[in-house]
């Protein structure tokens, strides 16, 4: 099958040509409509019940006071008003933003650097590509435990390595200032493979003639990178940034295992707070309101990126 570039995967769907396919048995439109709905039925039923319905319901539940055990009370916007003085919520939002805006650029740089490195001699580099993808193919929860072990203060592996270079490593997961950077480092390690694969696909799609032309013009490697590689890779970069930010805003697994939100609330993320509100304090209405705020942030940030892409992303080859 044709490998799609990420740009194509995110571009507007093509209109199907309206060529009438009228074989002997395909006369009336009525039968086609009926057939279409029959084909759609299983997916559509599940989609309406488990995806579209719940999205609407989340909006409704956010207006209720409901602990699941007693009947719900309609409280209007009270849940949203509660968010204002809720300092834990704001610090969770701040922590999530901190995580996102540090881990996404770092992951992007590592992904891009490794994709460029592997692209230098890709034919014989297939084994490296597979090995470098391994962290992405692991389970977040499982590898989070290993990272807790790596981060052991004083004598842990990471601080032992830092010690070789004469650096006195921090207490990582039990330090207010270093717990979040520790989570970020682990997350970059876990997720760079995703971007790396997408960038490799993007690099493969760049026509070689352009590099030839740049060479004939005597362009320096850096200039070639700036003028050829980066513009032509920009759709892949854009796609990766958008999906990574959406993913980072939902960070949960590694924080739950590695720090459980601590020390204090320095690594409590938004999703962790939603989880605790809804499933430990049983305040479903309040948790739904928090999830709506998370959704609003994702929509705003994604919309901003789509506005920016007009100026920065080149889709024409």
């Amino acid at each position: 099958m044709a490998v799609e570039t990420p740009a194509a995967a995110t571009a507007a769907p093509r209109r199907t040509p309206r060529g009438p396919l009228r074989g002997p048995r395909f006369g009336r439109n009525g039968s086609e409509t009926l057939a279409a709905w029959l084909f759609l039925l299983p997916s559509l039923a599940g989609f309406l019940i488990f995806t579209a319905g719940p999205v609407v319901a989340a909006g409704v539940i956010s207006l209720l006071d409901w602990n699941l055990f007693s009947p719900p009370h309609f409280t209007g916007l009270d849940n949203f008003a509660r968010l204002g003085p809720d300092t834990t919520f704001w610090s969770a939002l701040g922590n999530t933003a901190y995580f996102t805006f540090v881990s996404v650029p770092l992951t992007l740089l590592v992904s891009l650097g490794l994709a460029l490195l592997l692209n230098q001699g890709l034919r014989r580099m297939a084994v490296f590509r597979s090995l470098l993808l391994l962290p992405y193919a692991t389970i977040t929860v499982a590898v989070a435990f290993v990272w807790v072990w790596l981060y052991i203060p004083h004598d842990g592996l990471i601080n032992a390595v830092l010690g070789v270079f004469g650096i006195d490593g921090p207490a990582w997961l039990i330090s207010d200032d270093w717990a979040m950077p520790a989570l970020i480092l682990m997350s970059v390690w876990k997720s760079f493979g995703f971007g790396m694969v997408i960038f490799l696909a993007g690099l493969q799609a760049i026509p070689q003639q352009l590099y030839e032309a740049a060479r004939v013009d005597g362009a320096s490697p850096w200039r070639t990178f700036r003028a050829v590689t980066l513009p032509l890779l920009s759709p892949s970069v854009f796609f990766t940034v958008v999906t990574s930010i959406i993913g980072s805003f939902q960070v949960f697994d590694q924080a739950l295992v590695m720090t459980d939100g601590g020390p204090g609330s320095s690594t409590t993320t938004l999703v962790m707070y939603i989880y605790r509100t809804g499933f430990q304090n049983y305040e479903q209405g309040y948790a739904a309101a928090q999830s709506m705020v998370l959704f609003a942030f994702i929509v705003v940030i994604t919309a901003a990126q789509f506005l920016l892409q007009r100026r920065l992303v080149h889709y024409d080859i």
Partner: protein
Amino acid sequence: MTSDVPALVALRRSPVAARRLLVFTCFLVTAVTLTPIVMMVLVAFQSDAESMAARPSFWPGSWHPENIGRAFDLVPLGRYLLNTVFFAGGTALLETVTAALAAYAFARLRFRGRSVLFGVYLTTLMIPSQVTLIPQFILVAKLHGVDTWPGMILPHAFTALGVFLLRQFFLGVPRDYEEAARLDGANRWQTFIRVIVPLAIPAIATLAVFKFISQWNNLLWPLVISNSDSTRTAAVGLQVFQSTNGTQWNLLLMAAAITTVPLILLFFLTQRWFVKGITMSGLGGR
């Protein structure tokens, strides 16, 4: 860090030296990247005393393969793994079947409201799963689906992503094949089963593998919906393991390794599809 790396400067002067430097750099980066996975396995085979000492050791002083059995004895890890295969496999299977059917309708059949409906599907792609988490939980709880397989599998088996990916693929299938089948007197269902599905096997396999791997990784939903060993997945099982055997690093990491290794093996077997799945989709779970 990119085109300025010395390797490239040297590349123009001495291809052999450049090649060596390139391979060496790849080796170094790969070694650092694999360290956590290697350490997970090494610590898993250490003795209790060694793994719980104040100073962690990085190479087992003595090897203890019996730790594998001990990890399986402490919590029903085998059961959890089987449950995970059930959960991830069931979700992947249901998703690919229903998505293929719907994608065919969107790609090939004309009906009123097609583009509107497809638009509705697409808009849900951006909604974070936490928004639907609470209503889905309430729905499943009201239907008495907590701690049951339908309650685990159904809510995650009807995503717009699968429909979107397969529709893209179906649009690229030449219409001549279908025309030929129809002239031979096949009806729509026969055309779909005999012509479209065989051509789409690679795309369907890609979606299935990718979905399987992403669900194996899913922690939040099983954490919320399974509350007994009968449906508990490995990801949730590790949490239980941690709370009961927290300081036993060797057994904890053995359990983590046992949870991860099947997935890594699956990854190597299905790498082609897995990579394609990443390239085609935006399912970058973190």
